[in-house]
């Protein structure tokens, strides 16, 4: 049995994508993406949380680059206790990390438009998940008919920027759903941009673990793997809704 600490739980279509970290060499960790017995995504009722320890039996896997972290499983079982957010980020900083854009996936990042999201050529990238400290963050909100979608801009420690990253972090997506419900009830008394880019952003930048995990989508048409924000730390706190 292998044991993982769950680090990323992201929304992917109708299901969830999950990543964990396991010990690699002394004091270092590596990311593993457990794949359920059927399909790529876990059910939305996935019972585990970030920081939870889970164990699994591995099955033969033929993951293709850049998703080299893929690991087929028979399912996940809870094991051990749950790490605090601080402990989790401490371990993630000892997993795949980069201070600059090129180091994220060990390849060049490309963008089709100024200020647009970046993508990588799957033949060039050597991994599909990486962590980074960020020095600044701003949010962009898109009001889709069914659900609001959130995008983020990040500044890495190198001073380089990531633009228009889709936020697929399950906790942030759920938080945004709650925010939108409260805003709807408030009768327009609150400015969403102000709430996100002043109040929430201030909370994030004040944190001692302003850390993000950036992942890659599966190759899409045109052979592009788009970047997405798998995890944004600190995670949203329900008390941040009190102001609304």
């Amino acid at each position: 049995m292998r044991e993982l600490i769950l680090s990323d739980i992201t929304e992917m279509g109708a299901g969830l994508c999950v990543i964990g970290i396991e010990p690699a060499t002394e004091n270092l960790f590596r990311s593993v993406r457990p794949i359920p017995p059927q399909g790529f995504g876990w059910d939305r009722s996935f019972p585990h949380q970030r920081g939870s320890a889970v164990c699994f039996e591995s099955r033969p896997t033929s993951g293709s680059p850049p998703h080299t972290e893929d690991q087929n499983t028979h399912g996940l079982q809870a094991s051990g206790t749950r790490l605090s957010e601080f402990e989790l980020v401490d371990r993630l900083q000892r997993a795949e990390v980069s201070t600059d854009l090129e180091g994220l996936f060990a390849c060049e990042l490309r963008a089709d438009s100024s200020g647009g999201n970046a993508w990588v050529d799957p033949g060039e990238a050597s991994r599909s998940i990486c962590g980074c400290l960020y020095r600044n963050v701003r949010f962009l909100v898109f009001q889709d008919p069914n659900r609001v979608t959130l995008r983020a801009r990040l500044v890495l420690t190198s001073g380089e920027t990531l633009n228009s990253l889709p936020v697929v972090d399950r906790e942030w997506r759920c938080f945004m759903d709650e925010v939108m419900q409260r805003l709807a009830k408030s009768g327009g008394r609150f400015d969403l941009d102000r709430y996100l880019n002043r109040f929430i952003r201030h909370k994030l930048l004040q944190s001692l673990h302003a850390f993000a995990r950036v992942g890659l989508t599966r190759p899409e048409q045109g052979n592009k793997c788009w970047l997405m924000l798998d995890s944004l730390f600190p995670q949203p706190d329900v008390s941040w809704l009190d102001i609304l």
Partner: protein
Amino acid sequence: MSLPIDLETALATARASVANRLTPLPKDDVDLVETDALDSMGWVDALISIESATGIRDFGNPWPDDRPKSIQALAEMICEAQKPAPDIRSGECHRAGTQGESEILIGGWGCTLGSRTVNAEQIERDLALPLSKIRDGAGMESVRVAADGEDELALAQRAADNALEMAEVAVEQIDFVVATSTTFLGFPSFAASLHSRLLLRETSGALDVGGACTGLIYSFAVAKSLLRSRPQGVALVVAAEVHSRRLNAPQVPGEFRGLFGDGACAFVLTNAAIDARKGGVRLREFVWGCSGAYASSLGVKVSENAGLIVQFKGEQLAHAAVTEMNRIIGALESLSAKPRGEVDYFALHQPNPRVVEILADKARIPLERIPLVSKACGNLGSVTCGAGLCQALASLHESGDRSRIPLIFMAAVAPGLLWGGAFLN
């Protein structure tokens, strides 16, 4: 006042200037500095006192190396002086900005200081300076020093966030950032790095302005000029300095290093016409220039092995700072058509608090109208007069008095000797 021409009159003037700081008076031929009767700032104070009494411009600056610093020598120097130099107030200044053009409003401001406070005694111990050199000699109680993880960009980001919050301006609205920093070396430049750090939109501009301690005033002038061609525009003006790391080199004299602190300030500028709902202070006109005669009083260069070479003549610099800033204030009186007695606040560059006290005395400015940033924070370089301006604006804001338009003078000098001033109301 007329110039004394005989030695007896000159001696009396010299004795009186020294007596302001020293009683009983030593003999006329005693070297006052060599014998520690006066420290260097006390000597500068005496020179400036004579300058005020006689009208001799830049009296004793620089002081000849081969002369003792005695009362006798002061008197002889008075006699040798033939005529006072023309006053800048007579109209020799260059002016920038034209009355009647678009009015530029400071819509928001923010100031951030290094998180660590280091008191004067600690500085003296760390830099192996004589006891009380910083507290009594320079008049500083402490300096603010950047903590680990705080650099020019981190401090500037916090200051900018506060300024934008106050102005109720989103980063997407900023058309350009004008930034100045002496301690941020390398490329990408400070403005470019700040542009990325603040996540400004890609079509907003980023412009670096030099000028060292005058950099903020020059940045205001540049931003105001740029806004003229963009009536709906919004500018962010930022200054940031982290001296504690840049000057942390063995070649830098301790009495120079010990004076400096770390911080940042930021201001949001908008066209007053489109922001009429807001109160606030308007950037009016500027004066600037460069007095090369003092160029050797302070120099900082990067050596071939990437070390720092500092040339620092403290007395000469203090004298030049007082003289020039007094002249800038005079020029601003002319430009604003307001006497200094009507000025609410003076946001001044502050090499150290003692220099400010001497300037206040010479310029006849009540000390309480000068936000004394340097006393608790140290000399913040280009941020100093910005921090003073933030304090002044905050005081005016808190007072809530809308019955009259406040008046603020800004003045700064920098190596070169660059000088600049501005008035706001």
